[in-house]
């Protein structure tokens, strides 16, 4: 998620500024770190044309927005294995053998082969996996080209991280809100645990809020740092968030703690919702969640009456088998308690009124309805597809001025699992060309064996990457990508906020590395459609987006590092909400029309499966890494040299495991090897697995295990069978999957390293 612009309007006094002295020979630039999805405003310092330091911004509203991943970025991008030239596969797919070619040669062949795939199978046979979190200079051009050519099959990791939350929020009140941390009086973290090095601005804002008296409620099975600092910690069973929220609503409705005026005037479906909530007396909720009913009630009362309150976006709710219901329950809590679009609550900001959003560039109107209807997964799991969001087009145009507001890129996506099945020849039609940019799809979605099968069944695979990832090792072409130090950026937080920020380019890209913008421009030319990318350069495109502001990108970035739109609240009183009814739909007309339960519900766990006695919690972010990246950086690997599985002392005792032992975790899909770390913060029976592991130092190629990906990547554990997919979205359940645990010997490369350095203890991450 992007960093909200923080403010506490009630604490201005005794201010001072200590400007940083400029250093001789050092050139500074205001930039935006794009190492992770937060996008912190920072300053780069360069010497001899090279960035040598990344530090936090001089702008006080972005002060201290810096983490270790940003600090080591100059070294990470200087790594000797950085891709510097276009590469073409010369051996069998997955052999890891490539030869250097020119950009021109590569793009001419890619264009010809993509045209052949489209001619034979139709434009829907071309799928793209990416995320503007990572590519940043995509600026909607990928979707634009796909839409004009006729392919609806764009997939992204945002399908299970924030993008899907945006789409589902729209079902209830038509827009995805941003929490006003700095004015909130109660903050609810649902499994989320912002730290000094992950979601850093959120971490700072929560500390600030607590320092001025705000209360913190944390849902989390483990005793996280946030849980330790919470006023109320609800140590719920993994994957029972929706049951907990039903319990809150039961207390809030029964005790009359909701906002009656708002509910009467601005919602539909209250009585039906109340009947559903009545199915969840606290005794049942306590049983489902494992929490004390009195504590549940206390937390519900605090949320409802101690506000304004916020339930910020959390990656946990995005990834559960009833994710749609859980996200809708969050939305419903916000609305019925009167915390929606108020100061200190959840603000519905709209797009910056003078800056063209990326979704305008995406040109969704150019994709014919017949092609939209072919979007993979939209038949069974339509929530975030064109079909699922179609009923919101007119309301969005009416309220927010745009028919296709693709907030957080997540509102018009194909379903990833359905796409990979089609790639493997198991879909309604074949997908035979697969591109991925700034994305490591093999490790980024559920059911890695199926993804691998699908990738091995392609006629054309193209990767645009900084490093030779496991996914890139399977490609026909691997094209060198620039880094955030080497490109300018203009971000509107993908429509989540109205704030717009520019970031300067700090140095030239090495070798022949080029931006995502450049890649799409080259591809448009190779497809004989140069008209689709009419801008000559990134700066030219940014100038076009900023034309309503009346200044160029160069002028904008020279003048300021942010454009803030004056906040407005309770806008719905003039416009209504961007839903079919114009009100907050507690009972969703969109879901009902799509054939789903229009009310939120809870799915209890499937029956226990023999051989899988423990519960797995995966998709976990580690501080030193973002998604599947950064394992090549020495400073980061020194902190976390091996993938660590966390388990409780009692679970470790039951399985005869000691700290530092190697274990194999298995599910019905596959298994991975990890080093055990015994933590008393963990509940019994739960195993917590980090996301996205591979080892760049290991041998490349499919036969060799794709640099450790086939041994360590958590995607091999993630199921996508119906019991473990959300019904409406079709995204996987990552928070509570049955698993097995077996003690094993240390992997060969780990033993070899230990022999080279006897006595060196593994440096375990300080995070929980």
């Amino acid at each position, binding site marked *: 998620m992007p960093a909200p612009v923080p403010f506490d309007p009630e604490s*201005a006094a005794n201010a001072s500024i200590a400007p940083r002295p400029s250093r001789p020979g050092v050139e500074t630039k205001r930039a935006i770190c794009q190492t992770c999805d937060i996008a912190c405003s920072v300053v780069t310092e360069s010497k001899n044309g090279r960035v040598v330091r990344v530090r936090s911004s001089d702008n006080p509203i972005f002060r201290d927005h810096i983490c270790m991943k940003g600090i080591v970025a100059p070294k990470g991008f*200087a790594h000797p294995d950085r891709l510097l030239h276009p590469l073409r596969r010369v051996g069998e797919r997955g052999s890891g053998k490539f030869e250097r070619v020119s950009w021109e040669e590569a793009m001419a062949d890619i264009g010809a082969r993509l045209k052949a795939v489209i001619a034979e199978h139709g434009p829907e046979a071309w799928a793209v996996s990416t995320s503007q979190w990572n590519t940043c200079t995509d600026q909607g051009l990928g979707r634009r080209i796909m839409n004009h050519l006729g392919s609806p099959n764009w997939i992204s990791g945002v399908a299970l991280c924030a993008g899907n939350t945006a789409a589902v929020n729209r079902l209830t009140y038509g827009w995805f809100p941003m929490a006003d941390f700095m004015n909130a009086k109660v903050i609810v973290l649902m499994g989320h645990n912002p730290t000094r090095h992950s979601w850093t601005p959120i971490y700072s804002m929560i*500390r600030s809020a607590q320092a001025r008296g705000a209360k913190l409620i944390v849902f989390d099975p483990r005793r996280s740092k946030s849980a330790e600092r919470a006023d109320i910690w609800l140590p719920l069973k993994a994957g029972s968030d929706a049951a907990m929220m039903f319990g809150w609503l039961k207390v809030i409705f029964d005790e009359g703690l909701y906002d009656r005026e708002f509910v009467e005037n601005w919602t539909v479906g209250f009585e039906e919702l109340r009947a559903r909530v009545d199915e969840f007396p606290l005794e049942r909720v306590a049983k489902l969640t494992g929490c004390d009913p009195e504590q549940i009630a206390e937390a519900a009362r605090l949320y409802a009456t101690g506000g304004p309150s916020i339930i910020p976006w959390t990656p946990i709710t995005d990834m559960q088998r009833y994710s749609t219901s859980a996200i809708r329950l969050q939305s419903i809590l916000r609305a019925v308690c009167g915390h929606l679009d108020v100061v*200190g609550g959840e603000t519905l900001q709209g797009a910056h009124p003078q800056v063209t959003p990326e979704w305008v560039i995406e040109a969704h109107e150019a994709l014919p309805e017949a092609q939209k209807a072919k979007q993979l997964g939209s038949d069974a799991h339509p929530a975030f597809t064109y079909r699922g969001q179609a009923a919101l087009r007119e309301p969005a145009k009416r309220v927010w001025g745009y028919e296709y507001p693709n907030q957080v890129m997540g509102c018009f996506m194909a379903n990833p699992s359905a796409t990979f099945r089609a790639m493997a020849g198991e879909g309604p039609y074949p997908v035979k060309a697969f591109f991925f940019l700034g994305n490591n799809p093999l490790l980024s979605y559920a059911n890695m064996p199926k993804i691998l099968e699908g990738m091995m069944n392609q006629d054309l695979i193209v990767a645009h990457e900084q490093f030779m990832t496991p996914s890139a090792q399977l490609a026909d072409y691997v094209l060198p990508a620039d880094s955030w130090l080497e490109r300018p950026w203009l971000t509107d937080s993908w429509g989540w906020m109205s704030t717009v920020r520019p970031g300067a380019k700090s140095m030239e890209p090495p070798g022949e590395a080029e931006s995502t913008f450049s890649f799409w421009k080259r591809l448009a030319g190779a497809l004989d459609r140069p008209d689709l990318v009419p801008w000559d350069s990134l700066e030219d495109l940014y100038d076009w987006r900023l034309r309503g502001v009346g200044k160029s990108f160069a002028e904008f970035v020279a003048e300021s590092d*942010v454009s803030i739109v004056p906040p407005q*609240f309770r806008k719905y009183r003039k416009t209504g909400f961007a839903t079919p009814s114009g009100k907050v739909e507690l009972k969703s007309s969109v879901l009902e029309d799509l054939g789903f339960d229009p009310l939120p519900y809870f799915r209890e766990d499937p029956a226990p499966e023999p051989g899988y006695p423990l519960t797995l919690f995966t998709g976990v972010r580690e501080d030193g890494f973002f998604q599947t990246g950064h394992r090549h950086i020495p400073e980061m690997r020194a902190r976390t040299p091996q993938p660590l599985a966390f388990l409780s002392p009692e679970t470790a005792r039951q399985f005869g495991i000691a700290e530092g032992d190697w274990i194999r975790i298995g599910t019905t899909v596959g298994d991975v090897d990890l080093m055990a770390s015994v933590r008393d913060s963990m509940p019994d029976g739960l195993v917590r697995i980090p996301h996205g592991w591979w080892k760049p130092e290991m041998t490349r190629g499919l036969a060799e295990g794709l640099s450790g990906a086939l041994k360590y990547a958590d995607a091999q554990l993630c199921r996508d069978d119906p019991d473990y997919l959300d019904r409406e979205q079709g995204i996987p359940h990552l928070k509570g999957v049955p698993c097995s645990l077996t003690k094993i010997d240390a992997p060969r490369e780990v033993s070899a390293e230990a022999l080279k350095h006897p006595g060196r203890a593994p440096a375990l991450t300080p995070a929980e």
Partner: protein
Amino acid sequence: MERGGQGWSHWRRERMAALTASLASRSARNKTMLDRLCRVVVAKVAAPPAEDYMRDPLIDDDQGFDPDELDRYQRGEAPDAPASRRPAGEPG
């Protein structure tokens, strides 16, 4: 109990939020005397609490990298730079 954005308290908070957004815009520009005055105010408003329970020397003590050190690292000549892992025949 404050509810649904009603009443004097909410009206005041909304006006304050608009004022502080204006302060932040001017503060970010930081050109004129008024901008700088706004920056002084915002610097105080946005200050995180001094207590940071996850302080990290990697951040607190960071002085950046030496450009020559990065050059050597990029060429694989630094002590912590890995030997090239490119397969035979793959260019750099």
